[in-house]
């Protein structure tokens, strides 16, 4: 177990079935309904496809499928996230609320991690607990997965 210092930042809480995940609100560009996605051939299951967001093509990833528990069919929202210079869109069952990032986090036990491609370094105490996505690490993991896999 370990803790980090608190900040004034906000977190956006997303719902995936009964579980709650949070992403830093400062990374959120927009919350949309599921857009008209163009599927690409030979892609991993969690990659729903691409769509045009403000003139750029953004990859749309399914939170459900990334967690390895569902096909993403019940997902209704698409959260566009900016990670550095990159854009990704994460689809989820819903966007629940904004909460203050108290910083009172506990390091997650490895067994709590949902799916190998998500980086959930910390969980926010609560009932139920909120898993905070480390976006940068998650992006890097997915990028590595793309590079390593022979989808074709």
């Amino acid at each position, binding site marked *: 177990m370990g803790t980090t210092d608190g900040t004034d930042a906000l977190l956006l809480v997303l719902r995936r079935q009964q579980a709650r995940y949070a992403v830093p609100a400062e990374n959120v560009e927009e919350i949309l309904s599921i857009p008209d996605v163009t599927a690409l051939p030979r892609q991993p299951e969690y990659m729903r496809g691409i769509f045009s967001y403000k003139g750029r093509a*953004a990859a749309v990833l399914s939170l459900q499928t990334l967690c390895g528990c569902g096909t993403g069919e019940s997902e209704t929202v698409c959260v566009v996230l900016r990670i550095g210079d990159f854009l990704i869109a994460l689809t989820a069952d819903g966007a629940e609320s904004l909460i203050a990032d108290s910083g009172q986090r506990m390091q997650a036990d490895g067994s709590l991690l949902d799916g190998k491609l998500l980086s959930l370094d910390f969980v926010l105490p609560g009932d139920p607990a909120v898993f905070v996505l480390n976006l940068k690490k998650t992006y890097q993991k997915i990028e590595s997965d793309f590079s390593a896999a022979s989808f074709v």
Partner: protein
Amino acid sequence: MTPPAGGSGGDEVGFFSAELESMAELYQRETAGLMEEFDTKQAGAMQSGRFSAQDINALFRVVHTIKSSAAMMGLADISSCTHRMEDLFLLFRERPERSIGFESRIFDLMYLFADYVEKENARVTQKDFRPKSAESVLGAIQKEIDFFKGGPDAPAAQAEARAEEPAAPVRQEPAAGAAAEPLAPGELVWRVTLRPGCQMENVRAYLLVRQLEGLCGRIATRPANLESADAAAQIVRDGLVLTLRTSHAEEAAQRLSASPYVLRVEELGSGNAEAAPGPDADAPSDDADAPQSRQNKFSMVSWSNVMQLQNVTGELITANTILGASIRKTVQGGPLENEFQTMTRLFHELEKLVAAVSMMPVSSVVPQYQRLVRDVAAREGKQIRLAVTGAELEVDRSLLDTLASPLIHLLRNAADHGIEAPEARAAAGKDARGTITLKFENMTDHLAVTVADDGGGMDPQKILRKAAERGLLTKDESEYSTDEILNLAFLPGLSTNEQTNQYSGRGVGMDVAQNVVSSLGGSVTIRSAPGEGTAVRMEVPVSVTSSECLRFMVGPHACLIPIRCVVRILSLAEAQEHLQTAEGRRWLQAEEMLPVLDLFELYGAQPGEDGQRLVIIRDARGSAALLTGPVTGQQTAVEKPLPALIGRNYRTRTGMVGCTVTETGRLGVMLNADWLLRLCGKDVAENGNN
């Protein structure tokens, strides 16, 4: 350390005073432009192997102008460096023969000087800018001055006799007022109004007058003495009045107008109406009674704004394409469709204008390549000449910027591994000095860039052996043709060089060229002959905004490919009798045997019941037939890159290099003919022009 220009020292305060800080960006742009001219002149001299009188004069002008601007900004080190460079160029100006035989030495010094000034200039707008000492550069310049002064044919006295002001054709005397004195034939009177608040107006005026050097035989100014204490105030009040005699009035006006400090240039009078009739002498003048306003014809525009303009234009064209599809669905003909056609025409006009704004001459990027080749040659003890052809072409700057990386790699490869050492060349009966040719060609809708060397060429057997060692071969060695072997050089990490150095040898260069060019929708070909050299040719489309594309389906996937690559479209049913199966794959017997690339198989899609087509494509690599679903139309497509997340392997494995908004508003994927042909592997039918 150089004291802060604003006089308000302290570490927490910027180098410049508030007033000068507001000028820093202008100074930076102006200096960058001047250094570009400096680099271009140097590249020209390197091409010809000598300095012409014009080169020396131009270089002198450049350093002189930078000197004055730097002094204004309080940049004492740059001002000192440029002052010494003036001294050096003055030696050559007085006695041009001094430079003969020592050009290489002078080029080295010029690089040293340019490096210092350009690096300083790049930092000058940074908040924490502090000038770096120029001590070593100053020392190097002084050493050369001493050397050239000390030569037997360069009497010291001659150089010492330099007046504080360089010999200039400027004669400052009271201007002939347009109305007060009759003007001599050929004389012009202009009023130059400087931008309000540009500061140090008299110094700006002096620099402007100097810019006209070489264009005007006689220049008089009002105020006459630009160095006087009240000259600045007079210029603010009345403008700078120039009386000049020139046969290059248009160019002179352009030079003045191009200055960022000039608001406008007006013609107050001319003495050429009767005495010097020109071709337009009889043309009615619409400004007989009023001063003719010469608005600035040029202005500096931030490149990020131009790129933004390109993007917005692309978005407009995309939106227009979608709108057109909707209009066609709802109305057939009539005024609405006419209006749409007009809009489409206007958007294409806009696209052309944006393309024109984005153009820059190839010559502007040549100096960096000259430098690169020279550095490699010096380091490796080789003698190499870089011959550039097509430098006069104008090309979209984004394209030139994007091609910089592959060009750097290819030129390094050519200099480092292509051109042999002088002894080896001599032993082979070649000139000890090798030549690398960098050739730019305009092919209407394509730009072709070739890097060719007259070196030792590539050894196909060595490439084959390396590829085999790395497990990169896909068939028996004996089945590879020479061209196929050479194309193996494009595979990542395949280098036949036993040793790497700081320049090349890791097998990256060809791979980079391949990937960059493919991302632009172009193709790369390689030709090499042992003992004769190697040529790598890149062809890329010149339009970075839009291209006409054929749209077709492959199962659920909407795909587009540039029309320029499409030769013919056949229905599968029609072509059935011309299809053959050999070596485990299908072939289409057309004018030649074409391999069939089944896109359904490639993309894991199910073909529909009917509507399958064979789309025959062709590019520099060869030809092939793509098995696709139904063709759904043609559209102007603005290509966008695929998300970076997807990775470049995806492009190479699918031939999908980008995406575009289709008429339905959804994204379609852009296919690249070159990658698709690569996916056909050995079976691509080569073009006759290969």
